[in-house]
């Protein structure tokens, strides 16, 4: 027997999400102990460096909202980054490079979606399989070597500015706007909520949950393709381990941002803040000369702290 709940208006303090508290705490911490952290150049650097993760974490939010997961995203990013490198080196065309990357990414997204929605393999296992495939393909196409000689048209993307704003940030902002519109203002976005919240309701409304689910994973693949362009531009090469572990940061950002892994409760702005929190953490630890192994561990701690704060609030 359930108790009838009343609509509650929680006080302001309790409405502040865990990710905001974490973000403020991180800025205060590194502002105090990391020299140069609060400089404009550094903060702008943090944001530029967060753009690739943004492009993965936003689609990851949708996937997690469907009670799914995409472990292959980092490996697919490696592969699409290599696609950009190889095709642009061969054709000197940035557009052909990114086009090839999007096609490859979309193919992986469709395969992920097909495995999860139609074949019925649990997302964890299905995308673990495609992770291996993407990583293996990356080693094959690159022969284990870096791809160098990236044309200017690709390289300049990362350093160019548009109306004074770095192009990667513009791309990330546009991506965010598109995802915001998609999730909150389209039919598709409405159905994403339903995929995780009550799949039966979709069936009852005459919709096909399977096709919608494939769409969600395909979006993840396409975004990995676009992020591949930024990755290649940033590294000025294609590298067979470029995207290693990026899925971990993406899932962490989504979790830190307060998206629930159950019942289709997602928050895009939270993911964006989560991405920035992860970026600040890594940047700050860099500034105080912590090795990257410590960074990975601390991202893990960040996830747990943010979820702990959310858990505290929902319990009280």
């Amino acid at each position: 027997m359930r108790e009838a709940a009343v609509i509650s208006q929680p006080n302001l303090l309790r409405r502040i999400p865990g990710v905001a508290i974490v973000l403020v705490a991180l800025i205060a911490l590194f502002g105090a102990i990391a020299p140069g952290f609060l400089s404009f150049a550094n903060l702008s650097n943090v944001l530029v460096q967060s753009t690739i993760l943004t492009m993965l974490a936003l689609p990851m939010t949708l996937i997690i909202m469907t009670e799914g997961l995409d472990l292959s995203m980092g490996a697919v990013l490696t592969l699409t980054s290599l696609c950009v490198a190889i095709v642009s080196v061969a054709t000197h065309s940035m557009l052909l490079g990114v086009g090839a990357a999007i096609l490859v990414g979309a193919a992986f997204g469709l395969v992920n979606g097909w495995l999860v929605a139609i074949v019925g393999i649990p997302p964890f296992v299905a995308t673990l399989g495609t992770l291996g495939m993407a990583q293996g393909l990356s080693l094959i196409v690159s022969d284990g070597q870096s791809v160098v000689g990236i044309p200017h048209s690709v390289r300049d993307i990362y350093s160019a500015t548009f109306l004074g704003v770095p192009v990667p940030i513009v791309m990330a902002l546009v991506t965010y706007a598109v995802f915001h519109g998609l999730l909150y203002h389209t039919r598709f976005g409405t159905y994403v909520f339903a995929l995780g919240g009550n799949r039966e309701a979709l069936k009852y409304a005459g919709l096909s949950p399977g096709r919608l689910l494939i769409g969600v994973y395909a979006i993840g693949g396409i975004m990995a393709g676009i992020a591949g362009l930024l990755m290649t531009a940033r590294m000025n090469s294609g590298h067979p381990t470029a995207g290693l572990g990026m899925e971990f940061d993406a899932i962490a950002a989504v979790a830190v941002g307060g998206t629930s892994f159950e019942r289709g409760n997602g928050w895009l702005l939270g993911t964006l803040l989560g991405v920035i929190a992860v970026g600040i953490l890594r940047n700050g630890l860099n500034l105080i000369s912590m090795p990257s192994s410590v960074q990975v561990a601390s991202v893990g701690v960040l996830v747990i702290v943010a979820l702990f704060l959310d858990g505290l609030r929902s319990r009280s």
Partner: protein
Amino acid sequence: MSTSAAVEALRPGSEGATPLLELRGISKEFPGVKALDGVSFAIYPGEVHMLLGENGAGKSSLMKVLCGAYRADAGEFYYKGEKVAINSTADAQKLGIAVIFQEFSLVPHLDIAQNIFLGREPKGRIPGTIDRRRILADAKRVLDMIGFDIDPAITVDKLGVAQQQMVEIAKAISQNARILVMDEPTAALSDRETELLFALIARLKADGVSIVYISHRMAEVFALGDRITVMRDGRRIDGVLPGDVTPDQLVRMMVGRNVDMTYPRNFAEKPGEVMLQVKGLASPTGIADIDIEVRRGEIVGLCGLVGSGRTEAARAIFGADPITGGEIIFDGKPISGGPDVASRRGIALIPESRKSEGLALLRSVGDNLVVSALRKLFPSGMFDPRVSQRTADELIRQLRIVTPSARQMVGLLSGGNQQKVVIGKWLAAGSRLFIFDEPTRGIDIGAKSEIFALIDRLVAEGAAALMISSEQIEICHVCDRAYVMREGRIAGHLSRNELTEENIVRLGMHHA
């Protein structure tokens, strides 16, 4: 009893009227069970048609056939006198049939408007987008229509059960539902919320909407019903008007008589000392003030309707749910803690869903038999396959489990033999109090007798049993006495000579 034709003739205002929807001779069979057996059922415009029956009488199956979730094996549907087919939920929706299920079909993190129009969102100017202003206005209009004053932009997860139910009804109305099927809609509502629902039902009725209302509460049956159909064992027993029957007559129709199996039970002359004593037990699942006593050598029944709190009481005694009040005394000593404590002290819970909660289906019979006794059999922590094999073989012989060997995968056994494995598992662990939740669910009649013979032997040898069953006839034949639950509380106690199906149903139901 009057025939249905006579009833139709008696109904005020329905002389010569064609039913809005008529079902004729609907049958639906599942492997081993005849869920519906030639059921005929008519719904007239603007009436509240109460559907009554015990658990398993076929009400839910009939409802699922009506809304297209099940396809009838035989029978015909007539809509306003014309023959139609209901083969899918889409067919049913086209005819204006909508079902308000007990588990709602709502998406928790979408708002009320999005839920009402899920899959039918008004299109915005940009392709793929939703016209936000219109969806809110349309939702508001539907909500106003049913007199539910709430902001349609509130997400559904912030609503209480009653409000969610209102949204479900709004969703149905927005699809132009002319026939609304409600499955125990007041089960989770407070008195005030129930009043609001009744007011809404009156309003819908006035608009010509027909309502099929499944209920277990006598007061509702008489307060709301324009007509009553009673079902039992997948058959329509009778259709009556509320003015023509008394609650007692309805109870008798629901219970009926169909005894065709034997219940082996050797009642002890004198029960032993008290083994389990539960005093004022309460838990957050909604049960409260539970007093239960079980003595050595007894089989004590725990009855009541599905949802009355029987399973919750069993789980609380076993420590599977937290306890917020009262105490449990086992063998003279208080017991508290989780299932691990309870099982170590000698309490066993044999759950209703033995496949998901009682057995590891892909493992062998032998593994399943020893899994709860590992600590006892191997105190050093080292596993010895010979000891395990010997224990399993002994139990297979003792319980007469039919299996080629202890190595057989347990999922391949019949239901009755699976149940024996669950019991054997707890026997091996040295349990003395067995709590059975629907021990004969999904087991054929022959195997049922064997299970009861086994339980009888267990208690004769000094154990005790607390048995939950929706089959009242089982309780009557097997139990020394029984407690009847209603809405999370003990509604009454029946001693051996008071133990009849009618008494159980009477105590379990709400009265006017």
